[in-house]
């Protein structure tokens, strides 16, 4: 347990209290959004992929109607918080990898991300460095994550936006024959669902990635 109050902790509280007093939002709104932030994570998306690997009919549903498919993993995409959301989560799509096609997700504009089903973005996903370079040099950027794809594998970068969010459905890896849904869910990491890693038996964690400054400053 941390037994001191940091300036950053005090700053968060001060900003919140002053904003509520000024009427920028209500305490109730803040409470609800914070509860939403507390409970989201990558598990529903991982389970969706695991279920799809095991059930061809469910896989079809994922690829044709991901919003309906997400209900089976406990996510009501159109009303994820139960009280509304500030972002337009109008659509969710599942991008199916094949042995010759690999998908990876980015948001070049800001940091749009399928939060209701995948949780909050990792820091590197938010950085201009990742956002700019991935669309220009996807193969090189993926290699920095330790994912070196053969030249015959085409890479498709999908740009998220306010209206549409994406998750990647990787190819089920060899060595997982006979596995249960729970076992499969464990190896579908957040990084696999963004497309910067591939699932493999024994790998259940994400790679910590150094964050780099962009060569040129952001200029919106």
């Amino acid at each position, binding site marked *: 347990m941390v037994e001191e109050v940091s300036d950053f902790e005090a700053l968060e509280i001060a900003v919140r209290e002053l904003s509520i007093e000024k009427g920028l939002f209500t305490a109730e709104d803040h409470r609800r959004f914070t509860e939403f932030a507390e409970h989201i994570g990558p598990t529903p998306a991982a389970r969706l992929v695991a279920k799809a690997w095991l059930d061809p009919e469910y896989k079809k549903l994922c690829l044709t109607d991901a919003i309906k498919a997400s209900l089976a993993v406990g996510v009501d995409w159109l009303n994820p918080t139960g009280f*509304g959301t500030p972002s337009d989560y109008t659509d969710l799509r599942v991008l199916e990898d094949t042995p010759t096609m690999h998908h990876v997700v980015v948001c070049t504009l800001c940091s749009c991300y399928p939060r209701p089903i995948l949780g909050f973005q990792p820091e590197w996903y938010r950085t201009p460095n990742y956002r700019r370079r991935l669309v220009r040099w996807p193969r090189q950027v993926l290699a920095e994550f330790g994912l070196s794809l053969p030249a015959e594998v085409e890479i498709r970068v999908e740009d998220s936006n306010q209206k549409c969010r994406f998750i990647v459905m990787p190819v089920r890896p060899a060595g997982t024959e006979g596995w249960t849904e729970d076992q499969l869910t464990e190896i579908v990491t957040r990084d696999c669902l963004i497309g910067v890693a591939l699932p493999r038996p024994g790998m259940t964690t994400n790679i910590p990635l150094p964050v780099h400054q962009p060569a040129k400053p952001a200029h919106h």
Partner: protein
Amino acid sequence: MAESGNSNAAAEVPKWTPVPILEEIKEHGRVWEDLASQYGVTNPDPPWKTSLDGICEALSAGSCSSVAAAEKRWLDGRVDRSSMDGALPLLERRWEEDELSETLYQDVPFPERQLLCLAHSLIKRGLVNEQDLAARMIEVHERLNAA
């Protein structure tokens, strides 16, 4: 988005004016990485992170909690278009965070950097007063250390 304007050459570095209270926190505030290490805590994020996310969401939503709901009221002709926007729209906040993260707060780790950027954006717009913030921080420190 920069305070100095951004209509010139794209390569120009945005110039952001430092805010004294935030500079003080930047220089002397202890980041979660240090605190967690000292106290042997393994949480990757500080406990205030989700509350910070809640603030960002609430600011972009306004008191209506839902852009969709506001949009419907606008389409119904019940409110003006301007009323759909929250106090600090998401895209504006994120773009300012990009610029501030590469300038004033480039040496601050995440999510402390996200918090400083948010506070900077609020002060810049006059949504939060700098003197009020400094006074409230003292009060919060006293309150939390009272027991």
